[in-house]
């Protein structure tokens, strides 16, 4: 029995604003409980919401970045339900008329491009936090997070595998950071996905019943949860049982999903337009102003890197995965270094160092200028690529050191003087007649062995390219 998997994703993106969606309370993460809960956050009698301009700008930026329609008029609606972390007893969201409609995001799957349609994106507010374990059998409510601006991004059910879902989620995660609307910190809850999963018999046009896996905040969990859920659904259907619509939670420890207890009865949210807020007007003027301040989008930058700089599409894609990396790369190129060498160094040595130290490129101690200098010294043959790696390691410990000083300190200055190399080669040839004869009788490997001898004799400082050239000349006479 062949099955189709159908996945749609709703992502809650916390917007990078200083203050909350509907009040001037701070949105800073990690403060003492309820120290950032203002009158409005606490839902005191009589308080009223006033909309954050920057949150609207963020939504517009997202609409522009996904080629979406930005509504000139959108309405805020109340989503009514009771929960202790929802102080008003309703969430202010958008229902029938959201601010962004019909966008798209392209993902690359197995080398092929696939378009995921974004049905809508709307502005709403986050709820507070429930803290368990403060008192036995009770829950403590912290409203610092209540009211934080969110953009909820909803796709059509266009994804057909866990891989596609994760690829989309990753791409979206990069994009919202790229355009500066979200800090992307998943551990802090800045980017949370609800994944809707259903299965149907291959070729069936009718969709199966979907279950919604809530609040996945890591890409690994998204994959695990989908894999488990798909298997679970298929097993049930193959057993002849039917699937009930449900909201489910993923347990990262067991790797299993299970239905939430409190959502047994479908919630009737009784949406209606919030009478405390007026229709949100977005003018062409506002959109144009924001267009001017938008950064070039990653796909477009990657294309430029491929066409103008001759980078491979993989490298171009990796270098535009995140704006900080792109900025770093561009900054190095300002010193007119070879784009290919620069790309290799960033994606190779630097990335592996960053991974080991578990830091982002913004915390890389080696500045673009320093890396540029190092690459220049490779390009002008002062040091070999291998020697450069040693300089790099030393530089990492003492990032402000003059590179030339470091090269001399480490004695890594490459011997490029052809006269000196000539002499070394001569000496090695004379000391290794057997190897020379082996080469002359057809053993290619002997050539490299001879080079190795020269390098040894020069304590690694001889310019390998020059050694090779001179040795070849001498041996083919």
């Amino acid at each position, binding site marked *: 029995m062949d099955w189709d998997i159908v996945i749609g994703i709703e992502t809650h993106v916390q917007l990078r604003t200083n203050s909350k969606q509907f009040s001037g309370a701070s949105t800073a993460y990690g403060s003492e409980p309820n120290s950032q809960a203002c009158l409005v956050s606490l839902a005191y*009698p009589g*308080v009223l919401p*006033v909309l954050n301009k920057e949150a609207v700008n963020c939504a517009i930026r997202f609409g522009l970045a996904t080629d979406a329609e930005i509504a000139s008029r959108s309405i805020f609606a109340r989503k009514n339900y*009771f929960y202790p972390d929802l102080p008003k*007893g*309703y969430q202010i969201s958008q229902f029938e008329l959201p601010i962004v409609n019909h966008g798209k995001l392209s993902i690359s799957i197995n080398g092929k491009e696939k378009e995921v349609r974004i049905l809508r994106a709307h502005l709403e507010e986050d709820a507070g936090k429930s803290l368990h374990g403060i008192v036995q059998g009770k829950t403590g409510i912290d409203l610092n997070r209540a009211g934080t601006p969110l953009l909820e991004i909803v796709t059509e059910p266009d994804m057909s595998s866990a891989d596609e879902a994760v690829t989309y989620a990753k791409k979206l995660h990069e994009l919202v950071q790229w355009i500066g609307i979200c800090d992307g910190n998943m551990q802090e809850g800045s980017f949370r996905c609800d994944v809707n999963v259903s299965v149907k018999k291959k070729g069936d046009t009718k969709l199966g019943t979907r279950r919604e896996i809530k609040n996945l905040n890591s890409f690994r969990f998204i994959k695990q949860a989908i894999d488990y859920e798909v298997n679970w659904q298929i097993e049930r259907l193959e057993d002849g049982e039917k699937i009930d619509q449900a909201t489910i939670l993923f347990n990262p420890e067991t790797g299993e999903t299970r239905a939430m207890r409190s959502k047994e009865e479908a919630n*009737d949210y*009784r949406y209606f337009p919030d009478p405390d*807020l*007026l229709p949100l007007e977005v003018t062409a003027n506002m959109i144009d102003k924001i267009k001017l301040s938008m950064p070039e989008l990653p796909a477009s930058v990657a294309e430029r890197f491929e066409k103008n700089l001759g980078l491979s599409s993989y490298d171009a894609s990796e270098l535009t995965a995140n704006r900080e990396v792109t900025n770093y790369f561009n900054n190095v190129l300002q010193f007119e270094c070879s784009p290919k060498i620069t790309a290799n160094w960033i994606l190779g040595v630097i990335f592996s160092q960053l991974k080991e130290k578990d830091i982002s490129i913004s915390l890389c101690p080696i500045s673009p200028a320093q890396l540029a200098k190092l690459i220049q010294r490779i390009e002008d043959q002062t040091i070999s690529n291998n020697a450069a790696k040693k300089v790099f390691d030393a530089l990492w410990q003492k990032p402000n050191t003059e590179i030339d000083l470091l090269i001399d300190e480490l004695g890594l200055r490459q011997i490029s003087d052809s006269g000196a190399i000539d002499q070394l080669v001569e000496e090695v040839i004379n000391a290794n007649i057997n190897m020379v004869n082996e080469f002359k009788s057809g053993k290619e490997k002997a050539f490299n062995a001879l080079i190795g001898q020269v390098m040894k004799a020069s304590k690694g400082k001889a310019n390998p390219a020059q050694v090779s050239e001179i040795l070849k000349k001498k041996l083919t006479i």
Partner: protein
Amino acid sequence: MINLSLKSLNQGLVKKKFSSLELTQFFLNRVEKHNSDINAFISIDAEKSLTQAKHADALIQSGQNSLLTGIPVAQKDIFCSAGWRTTCGSLMLDNFISPYDATVIQKFNEVGAVNLGKTNMDEFAMGSSNETSYYGSVKNPWDLSLVPGGSSGGSAAAIAARLAPAATGTDTGGSIRQPASLCGFTGLKPTYGLVSRFGMIAFASSLDQAGPMAPSAEDCAVLLNVMAGYDEKDSTSINHEKEDYLANLDEPIKGLRIGVPKEFFEKGLDGSVQKVIEAALMSYKKMGAELVDISLPNTHLAIPVYYVIAPAEASSNLSRYDGVRYGYRAKEYNDLMDMYFKTRQEGFGEEVKRRILIGTYVLSAGYYDAYYLKAQKIRKLISDDFKKAFEKCDVIMGPSAPSVAFKANEKKSDPLAMYLQDIYTISTNLAGLPGMSIPAGMIDNLPVGLQLIGNYFKESQMLNIAHAFQKETDWHTRMPDGVS
């Protein structure tokens, strides 16, 4: 002192005939003496009031005063006042000491007015007789066996009994105008958005407006000058240019076109009340106004529409009362659900619960289109009725209430009968227009109010029209027997 206008009281303070401290103490004494008869006040805090009075006296001393400086004002217990218990007439907020001031309260504080105390009201502003308050019913000072009207019944009784020279109220379906009519004083509901709703405990957000309650139109103008004004903390607050509502009080009204809606004079209106209103209209005619017949054809739908929209908005606004962060919480409960259910069962009174249920119902799945959406459409029709009418007239007049004050308990058990009290006032709130009630006569020593409905932001004109009537008549100076 009990029948001095606000302007005269101001003169008295400025000319040092008395101090704010003395004035405030005077009214506090009156409250202490008479409040138990009428139950107009829920909270009195003499210490706080007198401290404000002292501060006012200092302002007056240094010449930095305005008309309301040092004047005691009774505040409907719907306005959050920092440090004061603010109950909204409900057990739900019986223990709620507000941590902040409503914008309206802040404005009074800024000019140095004195908070005389928090007045009684129908629970969460839901009612037309002040019989649903957790703190007991309010009695009409004209006849203690009768209701004062509602929901601003406490403020109304305080004015009628002259326990305060001025008061604030709120009006969602008539809760300033109807009590003004039943208690014989002047009350004004401004254009929606003129007065900030920040800090005013919400009942029906798209209908609620705060307004002044005082013996005369001139007094109301003094109060409105302080209360009105754009507030960026209220998204529905309108940035209307600041006006001086006293400036045009004495404009001549000759040539004024008064629209008289035939729907306001159909069955349901008490015959004697009708006579009083007609006499008042005649007075205006004598003053040079012209009476124009108009029609507001959708008037009969105002009550059904109101009783969909108001409970719907209220059901959502009152969801925050859940015992989690402040206010009442049930004493015993087994789990979270139980806590919610019991807290809200015990904390809310009957009328509030009824309206929450109606509101929840009309918003629920399957009913939204037929009820809430339909109501908002008819609301547009009602609003358009007024637009058309204002093409033919400058102001609309009619009765404020269908009868004089009725007996306590008479309509309490019949919600529909109670709802009909608001039949003439409700459409004004639905359209967001300003409305006033001024004393126009008496029937068996019970007051009858004349309602004025103006076009958007025409408060200045309405106060002028009311003032003109009050220059020719003395109904607004009458006091109940026994008030001295």
